[in-house]
């Protein structure tokens, strides 16, 4: 096994030494144990109030009027019938006549009424006259040389070609070359709680309850959009029903109610329905890659030449990292963004990585077959050198043993009968590493503790990290600690996105808690007949390090504060968190060659994320990421009608999501690396499951699998195409 190469050690700050994550052996760890989430009771009892649950006295309901066309010019908007409808209080023009709507679901106008049904009724009564314009419903249509100009700056936008090494020499050194086109499809975020907000003005101050991944970011965006002072906006998000990257922009569902609330002098709520959610709340861009690649006779990758494209909808890019992780010494890549008339992409859990991972990992299995090597062997030969942030080789070897990789058969299950089995592997990486976080800690004389941080909890468990970190640092019992998040009036924190939330706020909470603890030591030291620096805190007590029997229970120590609480602040500093994670996943499937149905039977995920703060939360992120990626491989698919450009499955019935019985046993191995500090784990686990599954399907069938999703009819088509091309029965 290769030894990890040492990482350069950054100069630690004074606080990084003073409040380092290490815990002396005389104290019990809280960090890294399995602490149940603190908001569990609220969530299982129905008490948790999501933005969607917020009701304010006198609240009105807003409803958007949206374009039914993929591309059209607004000729006129007639509100007269809508204004006369029961309960209607106001209307708003979002896009002026003469301007264009660029996709189905693009917002044109809005109405506000006393009740939600009245708002819906009235929105239907708004008469919008459209001049229908040409549109694209596929990348191929937009890329036709004779395509009409739908996007004024060009229907496509080519990026700079990137080239490294000597491509010709690379191909000359290849014993085998392969040319193939790989692709992945568009999926949408499908947050169970749709995008929503409630806006209420008090004079020139706006309070907005928003389902958002960033209360501070939202506040700044809202202030910018309304041209008001940031100090006059307060954004609150106590509980939210998922975001996955789609809730980082303060767009129409926030700005419409904010503006209408101001105009109408009443709180206004706006909640998107499921169809609006699919059409206009973000999506993961498509990816296409026409690849030529070379491999030497002994399985070393020699060359990669990729032409790639994809769409992020009506004017958004679709780039992705390629080749992914594995080292091609000679490579070239040219990417083109293609614009089509659909809603715009938004970051979706590990933006770009699942796409780049799929193309690369599928290619690698095909190259391994050309050389006649086990796909895992080929991977081990071509990984970057092992390092603490690049542990793939070690994890692959570990995983192979645990998963029983030696039982994998060569490509194509030779067993008779229609059910074929197969195995696949795939690797992931992510940078992450947030730098934006501040926290405030207050120790009350009665022993209760308040920890505040203006982060937010998408569902990942952020709120629980506050008592976990403060509890261990202060030595206070967990049930004495109250956590406050989800309010832009609390100390600044960055968005919960890109796996940056935890590494952004954990250092701040640690430092604030450490300072509060030291202040407490200073106030209680004389009672223990010791100097403050001789004290330690842990297990609900303050004690003398050299003589632990000289101690005070937490609440008794706090009582010595008299009336004056202790307050302390902390901000992110280097030395507590770092960047870059690595992980690998193994999948086993069965494929029914008569029906095309793929069943995943087992998944193993090995993942690191630096210091594990709460094992339950971290594991939960991996489970969720794996199943999200399984959905990407086998179920989800935004389907457009090529003739009309409208989405055919803007619901949850025909837009498929895995349920309980679609999900196999998932084994998660979390690699704890406390010495690396905190690293986020939201993104990496969702990168590689889809390609591990797809390679397992390829292994089962012995036919090329080059695009997702693996819906039954597509699996059958892949088998047929292979049989018809003379590839023999699968």
């Amino acid at each position, binding site marked *: 096994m290769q030894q990890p190469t040492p990482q350069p050690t950054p100069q630690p700050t004074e606080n990084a030494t003073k409040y380092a994550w290490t815990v002396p052996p005389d104290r019990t760890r809280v960090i890294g144990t399995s602490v149940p989430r603190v908001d569990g009771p609220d969530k299982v009892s129905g008490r948790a109030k999501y933005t969607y649950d917020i009701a304010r006295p006198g609240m009105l309901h807003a409803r958007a009027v949206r374009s039914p066309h993929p591309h059209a010019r607004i000729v006129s908007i007639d509100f007269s019938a809508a204004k006369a409808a029961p309960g209607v209080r106001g209307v708003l023009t979002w896009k002026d006549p003469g301007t264009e709507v660029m996709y189905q679901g693009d917002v044109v106008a809005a109405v506000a009424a006393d009740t939600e049904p009245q708002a819906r009724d009235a929105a239907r009564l708004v008469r919008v006259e459209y001049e229908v314009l040409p549109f694209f419903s596929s990348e191929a249509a937009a890329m036709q040389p004779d395509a009409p100009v739908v996007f004024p700056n060009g229907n496509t936008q080519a990026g700079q070609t990137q080239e490294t090494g000597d491509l010709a020499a690379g191909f000359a050194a290849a014993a085998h070359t392969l040319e193939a086109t790989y692709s992945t499809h568009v999926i949408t975020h499908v947050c169970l*709680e749709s995008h929503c907000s409630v806006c209420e003005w008090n004079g020139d101050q706006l309070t907005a309850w928003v389902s958002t991944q960033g209360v501070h970011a939202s506040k700044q965006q809202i202030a910018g959009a309304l041209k008001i002072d940031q100090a006059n906006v307060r954004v609150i998000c106590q509980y939210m029903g998922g975001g996955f990257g789609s809730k980082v922009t303060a767009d129409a569902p926030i700005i419409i109610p904010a503006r209408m609330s101001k105009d109408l002098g009443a709180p206004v709520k706006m909640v998107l329905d499921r169809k609006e959610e699919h059409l206009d709340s973000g999506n993961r861009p498509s990816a296409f890659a026409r690849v030529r690649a070379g491999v030497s006779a002994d399985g070393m990758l020699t060359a990669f030449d990729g032409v790639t494209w994809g769409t992020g909808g009506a004017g958004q890019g679709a780039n992705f990292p390629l080749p992914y992780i594995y080292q091609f010494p000679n490579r070239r890549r040219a990417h083109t963004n293609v614009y089509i008339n659909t809603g715009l992409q938004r970051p979706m859990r590990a933006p770009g990585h699942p796409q780049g991972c799929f193309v690369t990992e599928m290619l690698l299995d095909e190259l391994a077959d050309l050389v006649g090597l086990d796909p895992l062997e080929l991977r081990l030969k071509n990984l970057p050198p092992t390092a603490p942030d690049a542990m793939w080789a070690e994890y692959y070897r570990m995983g192979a043993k645990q998963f029983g990789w030696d039982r994998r058969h060569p490509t194509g299950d030779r067993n008779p009968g229609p059910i074929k089995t197969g195995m696949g592997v795939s690797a992931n990486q992510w940078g992450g590493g947030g730098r934006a976080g501040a926290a405030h800690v207050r120790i009350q004389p009665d022993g209760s503790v308040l920890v505040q941080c203006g982060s937010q909890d998408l569902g990942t468990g952020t709120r629980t990290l506050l008592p976990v970190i403060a509890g261990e640092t202060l030595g206070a019992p967990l049930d004495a600690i109250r956590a406050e998040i989800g309010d832009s009036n609390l100390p600044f924190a960055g968005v919960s996105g890109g796996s940056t939330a935890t590494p952004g706020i954990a250092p701040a909470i640690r430092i604030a808690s450490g300072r509060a603890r030291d202040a407490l030591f200073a106030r209680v030291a004389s009672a223990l007949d010791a100097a403050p620096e001789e004290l330690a805190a842990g297990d609900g007590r303050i004690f003398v390090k050299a003589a632990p029997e000289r101690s005070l229970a937490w609440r008794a120590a706090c009582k010595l504060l008299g009336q004056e609480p202790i307050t302390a602040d902390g901000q992110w500093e280097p030395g507590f968190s770092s960047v870059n994670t690595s992980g690998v996943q193994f999948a086993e499937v069965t494929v029914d060659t008569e029906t095309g149905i793929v069943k995943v039977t087992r998944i193993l995920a090995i993942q690191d994320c630096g210091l594990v703060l709460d094992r339950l939360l971290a594991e939960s992120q991996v489970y969720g990421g794996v199943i999200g990626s399984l959905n990407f491989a086998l179920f989800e698919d935004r389907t457009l009608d090529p003739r009309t450009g409208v989405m055919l499955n803007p619901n949850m019935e025909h837009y498929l999501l895995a349920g309980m019985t679609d999900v196999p046993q998932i084994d998660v191995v979390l690699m704890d690396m406390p010495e690396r500090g905190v690293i986020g784990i939201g993104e990496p686990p969702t990168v590689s499951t889809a390609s591990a599954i797809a390679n397992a399907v390829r292994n089962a069938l012995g036919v090329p699998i080059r695009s997702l999703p693996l819906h039954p009819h597509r699996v059958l088509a892949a088998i047929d195409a292979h049989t018809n091309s003379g590839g023999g029965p699968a």
Partner: protein
Amino acid sequence: MIVEVEVNGKRHRRDLEPRLLLSDFLRQDLQLTGTHVGCEHGVCGACTVLFDGEPARSCLMLAVQADGHKVGTVEGLAVVNALSPLQAAFREAHALQCGFCTPGFLMTLTAFLRDTPNPGPLEIREALSGNLCRCTGYQHIVEAVSRACGHPRP
């Protein structure tokens, strides 16, 4: 229409619009916002309530259909601020992430565990196949149900 309905043991008499959904009645008229609506058409199961003791999708029912019936919501599961064994197990086993789907899972399971007190893991998965979790805490949910039945990790 005048509707009389018993929700979580409490009787309500209201004059309701015939088109009002049961889910909207619970959430807006009674402020029982623990019942969530995810897909709006009976697929995701987040809005599951007990209708005369049986799980039902409140987004697919009209409030007027509940006239003369008993409805149970997640707010009725806990007894005097103490979590039910199932609720406690969901918390301990970390059987939720964002928690938006959780009330629906709990209501489906309340009826299921009443009829099937000692389910195996496959039975649990089958029983919950009509409830979707987008953050996908499925594995922990199965564990929570086993725990609530007094079983070790499946």
